[in-house]
């Protein structure tokens, strides 16, 4: 059996070290070792996007990342999305636009949407659909998710304006 390694990372802004075997994926370590079960396992082969997290700012499927590769990396997961005073604008927009049914794909969609709105604060419908092509949803038919991301973009730009004004 390969020796366990100590891996030091920053997860949702907090320093976190964990022990893992080389064969363990980031997804396994998040869910099984760190008890961060917000990140979901879907296909486990990189097709569905349910396990999307941000690794050094880039959306990745955590089932296709070895946890040992993450030494020194910054990881953002669904657990770090909410603001101190409640749901983030993306989360509220998903909720209020009914952009989820069974919910398994939702954490992945929210992480991808976060990266999208950071890169492109005002995306077109086509840009949203293209960016979210790596996240599959078998319930909603996608339209409500697209509505939610557009709504989230609107909310974020409004909250930016409010912050600037105050």
């Amino acid at each position, binding site marked *: *059996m*390969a*020796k366990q*390694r100590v891996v030091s990372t920053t997860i949702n802004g907090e320093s976190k070290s964990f022990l893992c*075997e*080389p*064969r*363990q*994926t980031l997804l396994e370590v998040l869910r099984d070792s760190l008890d961060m079960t917000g990140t979901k396992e879907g296909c*486990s*082969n*990189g*097709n569905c*996007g349910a396990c*999307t997290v941000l*690794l050094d700012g*880039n*959306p*990745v*499927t955590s*089932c*296709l*990342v*070895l946890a*040992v*590769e993450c*030494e020194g990396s910054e990881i953002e997961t669904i657990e770090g999305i909410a603001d101190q005073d409640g749901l983030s604008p993306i989360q509220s927009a998903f909720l209020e636009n009914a952009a989820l049914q069974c919910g398994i794909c939702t954490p992945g969609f929210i992480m*991808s949407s976060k*990266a*999208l709105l950071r890169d492109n604060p005002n995306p077109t419908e086509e840009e949203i659909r*293209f*960016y*979210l*092509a*790596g*996240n599959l949803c078998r319930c909603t038919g996608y339209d409500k998710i697209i509505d939610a991301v557009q709504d989230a973009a609107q909310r974020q730009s409004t909250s930016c304006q409010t912050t600037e004004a105050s």
Partner: protein
Amino acid sequence: MRDFEYEAPQSLNGAIQLLNQERVKPLAGGTDLIDHIRIGRVDTDLVVDIKKIPELNVLEVNPNGMRLGAAVPCRRIIQTSEVKELYPAIHDVCSIIGGIQIQSRASVGGNLCTSGAAADSTPALIALGAVCIINGPDGEREVPVEEFCTGPGANVLKQGELLVELRFPPADPNSSSHYRRFIPRYEMDIAVVGVGTALTLDESHSVIKAARVGLGAVAPKPFLASKVSEFLIDQPVNEETFTEAGNIARTLVAPIDDHRGTVEFRTHVTGVLVQRVLAETAQRIQQS
């Protein structure tokens, strides 16, 4: 997943020493490798992470051409404006491989080394005349990219050898390139036919001076369609030329017959795509 050891060497020599043994695999983005280990298609005792080696992370465009390190992920390539401007076929490829999550991790070098018959990057690399810089226990060697793949999933790399970077010739001001594929879905699918083209036109942008066409998913390995490339030289830039190029391309393919596309369909689509991709390449030059 089966048990294996992991090393992340900081130097090229360190990596080559580790790779020069049986049952060892280099890891770049891992989007193929990790899945292949999980499903048991790859049996390995040691995974060597090559992303910490400086030579494999080079992305440099200068008057001598472009140097693209084998481990540079697609997302970094997409975000590099010189690539889009001077080697647009590479930008095209990196924008359509997988979704954003795959693009964050997967590299063009890794796509080439997996050596799939339908790999998106390979026809574009062939069109652009890229050269593979390979290092190994016997030192460095260069292999033209069209000679790199030897069959489905097979390539010229010997034990201990590593693809270090891809080198591209300088981009002529009257040249451009394009890659496009046919897939049954809008996104996230494997090419049924993939076409990469690079053209250089004369000063008036009305006659073709140099051409290279790479075809993917229509033979056991992606290949340089030499007959099409030779036909195009000194031809006028018009629809008839591109249609004839497509007709020639149809005579060069040897596709498989499967549920994603029959031989007849793949052969037909090859001609259509060659015509359209050439037209788009010429238009890019004329609009620049």
